């Protein structure tokens, strides 16, 4: 009964939206705020319409939503945007909350730059967006960021950083004897995102890759870096856990040793899944002439596997139950599909078979939609995002399912998924919390309702890139050299837990070490430098008035003009510094870069 009434509500809102929402989609949130009274009237009218529309509302859904622009051209948004908005509206009504108003344009501009290309907009980009008077300027901006050549490199870098951390962690490839080549991993990922490789193809390559890990070496295949550090030790159990968790959202690592206490995964399943990785080896290739046998790179290969029973025709693995009993396992996918038992690569390439089976799994679709949703909106449909097991509750499950299916049906085009999410209402709303949605606070344990944008801290990579843009720092050296410099800087925040699984955490988390870095670190010193040729020096020397200069600082850093009290502070500092404009700008710029408004994505 509850399900039916929920459907009716959704249909009701569908009709309201299709027929009554203001012409300008970007004002939808405002509409709901203003329309309390008229909604009551509409309610009656649409109640009647509802009766007639139930029969065809679902069967006759338009595939696109049309919006009339001021210049009378029609702009079409993908139907998924509407799908998201309807589900959100229904959910908000159910919980008696109202969304925050639409976020101010420049704040939104900053948000979408951070999430899509990994940095804040430059002064010029802010200005460009501010000048655009078109009703669909937000849609145009997203399209520019994902499609225009000038952003391709940054787009690819941003998503490569995000995925490198997902696939090999912040520490993978950073240690001397590591089997993973971080640069190789990033090179592969940059290439994927620059060419917008369909997501399923990328997963297939990462799971089935063989070849050399290091760029420039014969047989280089950067995709090998994902598994290179996870197959040799402990019978490839790390590969087992990582592949199922990252790509399928299934946490099987606990079942390595025992049946899972909370869900249906059994120990048997873990080892059957593990069996897919047992033909795979990471062969070390040493630095020629190195006395210490330093690893130069690794070759990830498939080789015949005879199993513990030394029978390659029927290569089996053993595992121990808690009571000491030993059991046998062959490769079986999580859904129960078996493959051939042979360990001969020429007969059965186990990872190729695994890749094929994964491509058919609906968990593949859900895991990526959840990950992308959380990337843009701060929380996923499940918490944590990589646990889609049956024991873990899902918020708005119907929407989640549909987005996952739609993503498969659009050939795993990540850019389309980005459009769906960034153009949806939950991504438009302000991060300001109102009295009508203050109960929507997932950081306190609530299930997220996405009625206001959840303020969150930038990542270390985003900070690094944002500072480069804001201060127009001309970083030295080749692209590779620049990446190396950034990685070197990132190192300071990583703390490893010292377990075999390479668990780690970051101190770039809003605690004191991060504040100290922002107060005194080299990166900040560089950003506020007044040396000849620096950005701040240029600004100090420009012919504009001190007030204009301060305004320039605030727009470059925060995407807004300074408030009167902030201008007043600057003036007081200027007086104290005996009219030395450079020093005043330095202090103000330091304060801006250290402020919550700068370091948070809001």
């Amino acid at each position, binding site marked *: 009964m509850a399900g039916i009434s929920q459907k009716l509500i959704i249909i009701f809102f569908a009709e309201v939206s299709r027929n009554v929402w203001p012409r300008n989609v970007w004002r939808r949130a405002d509409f709901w705020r203003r329309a309390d009274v008229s909604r009551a009237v509409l309610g009656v009218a649409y109640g009647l319409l509802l009766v007639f529309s139930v029969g065809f509302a679902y069967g006759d859904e338009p595939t696109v939503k049309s919006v009339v622009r001021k210049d009378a051209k029609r702009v079409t948004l993908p139907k998924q945007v509407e799908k998201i908005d309807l589900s959100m509206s229904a959910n908000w009504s159910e919980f008696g909350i109202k969304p925050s108003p639409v976020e101010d344009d420049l704040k939104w501009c900053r948000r979408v730059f951070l999430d899509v290309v990994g940095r804040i907009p430059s002064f010029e980009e802010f200005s460009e967006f501010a000048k655009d008077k078109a009703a669909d300027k937000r849609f145009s901006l997203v399209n520019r960021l994902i499609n225009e050549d000038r952003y391709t490199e940054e787009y690819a870098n941003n998503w490569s950083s995000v995925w490198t951390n997902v696939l090999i962690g912040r520490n993978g490839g950073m240690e001397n004897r590591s089997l993973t080549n971080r640069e190789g991993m990033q090179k592969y990922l940059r290439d994927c995102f620059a060419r917008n490789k369909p997501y399923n193809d990328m997963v297939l390559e990462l799971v089935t890759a063989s070849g050399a890990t290091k760029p420039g070496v014969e047989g280089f295949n950067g995709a090998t870096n994902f598994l290179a550090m996870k197959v040799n030790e402990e019978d490839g159990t790390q590969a087992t856990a990582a592949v199922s968790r990252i790509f399928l959202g299934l946490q099987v*690592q*606990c079942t390595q*040793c025992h049946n899972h206490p909370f869900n249906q995964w059994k120990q048997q399943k873990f080892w059957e899944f593990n069996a897919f990785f047992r033909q795979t080896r990471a062969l070390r290739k040493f630095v020629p002439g190195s006395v210490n046998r330093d690893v130069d790179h690794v070759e990830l290969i498939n080789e015949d596997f005879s199993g513990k029973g030394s029978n390659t025709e029927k290569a089996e693995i053993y595992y*121990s139950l808690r009571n*000491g009993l030993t059991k046998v396992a062959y490769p079986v996918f999580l859904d129960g599909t078996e493959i051939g038992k042979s360990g001969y690569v020429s007969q059965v390439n186990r990872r190729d078979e695994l890749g094929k089976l994964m491509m058919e799994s609906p968990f593949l679709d859900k895991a990526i939609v959840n990950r992308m949703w959380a990337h843009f909106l701060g929380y996923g449909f499940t*918490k944590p995002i990589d*646990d889609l097991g049956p024991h*873990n509750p899902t918020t708005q499950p119907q929407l989640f399912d549909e987005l996952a299916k739609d993503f498969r049906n659009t050939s795993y085009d990540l850019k389309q998924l980005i459009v769906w999410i960034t153009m949806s209402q939950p991504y438009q709303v302000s*991060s*300001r*919390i109102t009295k009508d949605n203050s*109960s929507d*606070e997932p*950081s*306190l*344990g*609530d*299930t997220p309702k996405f009625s206001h944008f959840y*303020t*969150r*801290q930038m990542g270390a990579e985003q900070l690094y890139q944002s500072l480069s843009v804001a201060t127009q720092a001309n970083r030295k050296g080749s692209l590779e050299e620049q990446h190396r410099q950034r990685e070197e800087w990132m190192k300071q925040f990583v*703390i*490893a*837990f*010292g*377990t*075999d*699984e390479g*668990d*780690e*955490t970051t*101190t770039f*988390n*809003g*605690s*004191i*070490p991060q*504040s*100290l*870095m922002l*107060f*005194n*670190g080299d990166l900040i010193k560089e950003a506020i430098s007044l040396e000849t040729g620096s950005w701040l020096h240029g600004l100090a020397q420009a012919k504009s008035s001190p007030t204009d200069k301060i305004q320039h600082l605030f727009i470059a850093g925060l995407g807004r003009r300074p*408030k009167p*009290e*902030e201008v007043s*502070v600057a003036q*007081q*500092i200027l007086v*104290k*510094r005996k009219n030395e404009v450079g020093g005043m700008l330095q*202090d103000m710029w*330091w*304060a*801006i870069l*250290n*402020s*919550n*408004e700068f370091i948070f994505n*809001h």
Partner: protein
Amino acid sequence: MWSRFAPPSGMNRRHFMSHMAGAGALLGSSMSLGHSLRVHADTLKKNRKSCVMLWMGGGPSSMDIWDLKPGTDNGGPFKAISTSGDMQICEHMPLMAKQMHHMSIVRSMSTREADHNRGRYYMHTGYVPDANVDYPSYGAVMSHELMAQRSGLEIPPFVSVGGASEGPGFLGMAWAPFNVSSTGRIRNMEAKLEGERLAQRRFALETIENSFIAQKRGTVLEDHRKVLGKTFDLLTSAQMEAFNVEKEPDAEKEKYGKNGFGQGCLLARRLVEAGVPFVEVDLGGWDNHQRIFQTLENDRLPTLDKAMSALVGDLSQRGLLEDTAIVWMGEFARTPRINAEGGRDHWARAWSVVVGGAGIQGGKAVGATNEDGTQVVTEPYSSEDLMASVCHGLGISLETTFTSRNGRPMKIANSGKIIKDLFG
């Protein structure tokens, strides 16, 4: 379904408790207020409680260190030796053997979390991981409670040496661990600004910061302001000298062991002396799935033995042990059965932790495991019970409650029960 928790509005009885002296007094809820008024500042300082946690990342094999089973199939090659306490421990811990009258072993720990991340979280918080509530860890809870005793402290109250520890959960980033390396050197501490310049910047920063907070964009912004305040304090504090472990005489450094963990323990002693309420020192490398006995004998145990015995000895000698709790533990222990590669895997069902100081009785072995080390045969204890016992030793009331926004009370240490044998 999904319950909501707000940041706590402070622990209910904290202020009341801070005026009381001594752990014994805390037991009597009928205690008169008149007594607390007689307490002098000196007494307060004398009774200033601290806690040092020695965190053994990876899951140390307690059966090879604190609860040996020589001569059994699972026992391994190590022999048991007698100690200054009423128990035997591993032969490769000879220095600790002389300090065991200060420390007790709880041999009947029995938990369910045998995955590193889950186990680390559970042992640090007393709660199993919960997607909806982020619980505060030992360091956050205890420093939060003990701060009332030290109004002049400028150093962060929760310091984690050489490891990450666990976060402050719903207590907020102001109670996050301050992560430092065991050298005590802190990155980016050198502020070369003249005082006035720093004041100008602080003025400008606070103006921007406050106007953004006023826009109500989430509680994280308020936390950010608190952390900034603490950072400013720290930049100008003379107390930061406590981190200067390099200054210690060479003999002292040698006594603790010239390695990360040894110097970390020495740093912990300095921090406790300076009044820091909670210090965690990490020693990793206990995830011994292979070749466990070689690793323990040649590497981990000598490192542990030297540093831990020096810390216990020094604190005792300086009269600090009666107010300082020491907790030694990891996320779990290791399988009694030795695997095919000469290692032990993860085992949480029956294992040991070591505690002492701050009113916890030393020299005892509490609880027991069966002959092959697979099961606990006495009353089993949990992470909650251990945390409750440490709180009790530190004089933190177990009635202390966090109040959620919807009025739901959450007791400290997840309502764990005191391990009575630790208190005689």
